[in-house]
């Protein structure tokens, strides 16, 4: 049915649907059931629309939509390429699951201001799709800032002093880095290349000296603060004050993935792999990303708060993607693209589980979770699958990305990168496995909260679905793999 629409219309529809949803949600402010129905319908419509684009894109089409020229050189325009397709597909699919989860969580915890919560969520998703489908750096930048701004009220949702402070760090760091570093990078790119359109093979070939390329790469790498490269990572732990569904979808999928997605996109479509390799100015990024992978894991090792641990694990996993991009081998970039998808489904599962425990047992610290797997087998079962994927063990999605990255690093003899991946796998195992062991094998303490079972069914349904997704991606990686491969075609 959907396929019968021309792809150009679908592109426009995909960007607009979440915003239309955001306008409709407040209409049903007084009827929560209808309001949530609108969210679910919007999420469903978005997913189907994005899905309708998959076949044309796999067949080699690059549908475009809209072209508002703001000033010469700056245009609001969309164009779907394979990497953006993959990102949009993952984000829109997980939005459906996350909406189901949100309903259970927000009602289960009696959260205030739910209408504005769902509105901001829809806007954030709209911005995510805008980032995924951006034809040029300006459009991407526009929605990148929109994503920061629309998620800020979600981070400060609880309006406690902690939440306000977390929000302040979030806003200052993300807007700050993008305004001070990313914007000049875009301006300089325009001045050098005379275009800021994403183009296969890059736009900077032969346009700038090696030193300028190196400077630009630094501006992009740190200007895209959402990728959480150390030392600009600390907004992510600060953002953990948000309600768990926000952490799950936005801070494990939409926001941070927008960051690493942008980095991969800039490396592939702005610099071009050949230009970067030729310039010899990108080696430092391997070290920075590698250091982030290891250091963030070391910090995660010492966390007792589950959400904090997951946040640092996210910082570490994001830098895998940056590392893979910095290796500059085509196969490692395929790994980067796969890891964006794999980490998304697995990390959202882990956050869902953390929120499930909070809702059912009101526990946030790992030390309090002894034996909790016996009361909440579904939750902790899903958690175990997510944890395996984080470590990168088969049969989970996390294995795929790591495998390609490792192959790429070995092919290009990047032994530092190989070392980092191996070391961090050990580290990941040493902070995820003890949680699973604690949950299933340790005897529970006397429980002061009385008896509790599983969380409300929408929560369990959602986390089961993403856990299945984590396994499914391992067995059926054809679509993401095909998209990742065609990303590198000129």
């Amino acid at each position: 049915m959907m396929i019968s629409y021309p792809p150009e219309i679908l592109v426009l529809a995909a960007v607009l649907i979440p915003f239309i949803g955001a306008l409709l949600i407040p209409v049903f402010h007084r009827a929560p059931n209808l309001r949530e129905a609108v969210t679910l319908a919007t999420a469903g419509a978005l997913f189907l629309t994005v899905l309708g684009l998959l076949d044309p894109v796999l067949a080699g089409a690059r549908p475009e939509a809209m072209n508002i020229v703001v000033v010469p050189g700056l245009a609001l325009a969309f164009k779907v390429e394979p990497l953006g397709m993959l990102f949009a597909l993952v984000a829109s699919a997980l939005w459906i699951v996350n909406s189901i989860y949100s309903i259970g969580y927000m009602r289960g915890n009696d959260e205030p201001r739910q209408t504005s919560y769902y509105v901001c969520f829809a806007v954030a998703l709209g911005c995510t799709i805008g980032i995924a489908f951006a034809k040029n750096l300006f459009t991407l930048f526009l929605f990148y800032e929109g994503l920061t701004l629309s998620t800020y009220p979600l981070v400060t949702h609880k309006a406690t002093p902690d939440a306000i402070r977390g929000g302040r760090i979030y806003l200052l760091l993300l807007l700050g880095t993008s305004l001070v570093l990313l914007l000049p990078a875009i301006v300089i790119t325009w001045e050098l290349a005379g275009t800021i359109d994403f183009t296969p093979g890059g736009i900077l070939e032969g346009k700038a000296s090696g030193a300028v390329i190196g400077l630009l790469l630094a501006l992009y790498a740190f200007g895209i603060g959402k990728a959480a490269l150390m030392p600009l990572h600390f907004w992510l732990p600060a953002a953990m004050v948000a309600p768990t569904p926000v952490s799950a979808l936005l801070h494990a999928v939409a926001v941070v993935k927008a960051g690493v997605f942008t980095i991969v996109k800039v490396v592939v479509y702005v610099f071009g792999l050949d230009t970067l390799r030729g310039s010899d100015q990108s080696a430092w990024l391997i070290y920075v990303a590698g250091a982030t992978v290891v250091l963030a894991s070391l910090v995660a090792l010492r966390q007792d708060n589950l959400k904090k641990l997951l946040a640092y694990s996210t910082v570490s996993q994001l830098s895998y993607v940056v590392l893979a991009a910095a290796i500059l081998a085509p196969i490692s970039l395929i790994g980067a693209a796969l890891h964006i998808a794999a980490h998304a489904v697995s990390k959202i599962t882990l956050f869902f589980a953390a929120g499930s425990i909070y809702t059912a047992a009101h526990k946030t610290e790992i030390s309090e979770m002894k034996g909790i797997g016996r009361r909440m087998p579904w939750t902790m079962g899903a958690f175990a699958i997510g944890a395996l994927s984080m470590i990168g063990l088969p049969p989970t999605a996390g294995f795929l990305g790591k495998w390609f990255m490792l192959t790429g690093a070995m092919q290009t003899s990047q032994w530092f990168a190989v070392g980092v991946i191996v070391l961090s796998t050990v580290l990941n195992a040493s902070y995820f496995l003890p949680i699973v062991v604690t949950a299933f094998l340790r005897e529970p303490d006397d429980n002061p909260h009385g008896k509790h079972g599983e969380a409300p069914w929408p929560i369990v349904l959602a986390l089961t679905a993403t856990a299945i997704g984590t396994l499914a991606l391992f067995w059926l990686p054809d679509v993401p793999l095909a998209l990742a491969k065609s990303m590198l075609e000129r």
Partner: protein
Amino acid sequence: MTRIDVIQHLPSLQVVIPLLGAVLTAFLRRGTLAWGLAAVVTWLMPVIAGALLLQVLQDGPISYHLGGWPPPWGIEYRVDVLSAFVLLLVSAVSAVMMPFARRSVAFEIEGDKQAWFYTMYLLCLTGLLGITITGDAFNAFVFLEISSLSTYVLIAMGRDRRALLASYQYLIMGTIGATFYVIGIGLLYLVTGSLNMVDIASRLGSASVEQFQPIVVALAFLTVGISLKLALFPLHVWLPNAYAYAPSFATAFLAATATKVAVYLFLRIFFSIFGVAISLDALRVFDVLLALSLSAMFLASILAVYEQNLKRMLAYSSVAQIGYITFGLSLANQNGLTGSIVHLFNHAVIKGALFLVLGAVVYRAGSVKLADLGGIGRKMPLTFAAFVVAGLGLIGTPGTAGFISKWYLALGALDKGQWPLVFLIVASSLVALIYIGRVVEVAYFHPTSEAAEKASDPPLNMLLPILALAAATIYFGFFTELSAGAASKAAQALIGGLK
């Protein structure tokens, strides 16, 4: 009189109608009636200005000889793209704000003084439009004084007794500025024997070397004089108090228009008089201007961060934003100048919206002290939504008018080969993020304060102008034919004339 005649006389009508309106308003007693008259006059202005801009874009500059006396002896009204653009800007922003005035002025000013307020407002508008349209340097001085004198009265009408002091402070500084300006014009007259701007420029070109010294001195006097009027750092000290204690509508009107017209005069003096005749690069005047602009962008922004009174905070922000405008001017290239001129426009829209929001806050909550405004964003949702949008424009996030300005300014800096300047532009907008973010935090996330408790969105005739300007902030972030398009043409004309 035929229709053709009216169109021919549009340049003089642009100034004569508000002048007559001011006189008529002075005879009225009731505030509402005076508002009605002022509103009708104000709403006519953008119609005339729009017609002039269209005419100029089609047929090139208009030269109108007042009373039929040809220049350089008679006074010439000269409308080119730049002046038509500024005319439209001043009159359109005033027209959008006008509905706001009725309740705000009725609330803040005693009944028997309201008609006087509108008289002074119309006189000020006359002066501002006059400065913009005239091609005669001395005539510009006359209009400068008309606008300044009426501004002193407007400020003094503020509720707070400190308004008197603020007005007096501005009176002293403004008078010094006007004196400097007239001394500069006098020196130019000494050298060239002319007061017509185009004529002065052509006569300066043939000035001999021994006449060079007085020309430089004249430029210095004019620069300092106008810098006082446009509140260029460090000559800005009169502005924060004047904006803080003037009636809310007067603040919004002045912030959106008065400094913009002073910048216009700056552009004229630099690019249409001196730039045509002599090489400005040799005098390094742009280097000085660049240094002062950067100081304004940073120091004034930082002062804004520490300000508790929101009107003063926005006033310091205005000083910083004027820094952006003169920054682009000092680059003196196509992109930089476009950025400067388009920021005139964008900042007028953005700052107009922000000051109107504060006017609404005064109307509903009675205070603009940050400490009194906890939770007010929840009580005045539409008003503060507009504040957030305009605030984003001030920061210059993409999708707002402010971004367009910054884009051109950054390109201008790169064109000059000064890439570190790009980082200074964006770094100072980070400071704007801090002072706007601070207000957002208090307005949305702090517990509701006593003053905010009873507040709600203002009545429609106050709310609509606010929302219109906020919408314009977004509109001109995407559709820039009217803003950046015209600014680029104006910049081209100015650059083209440079020696």
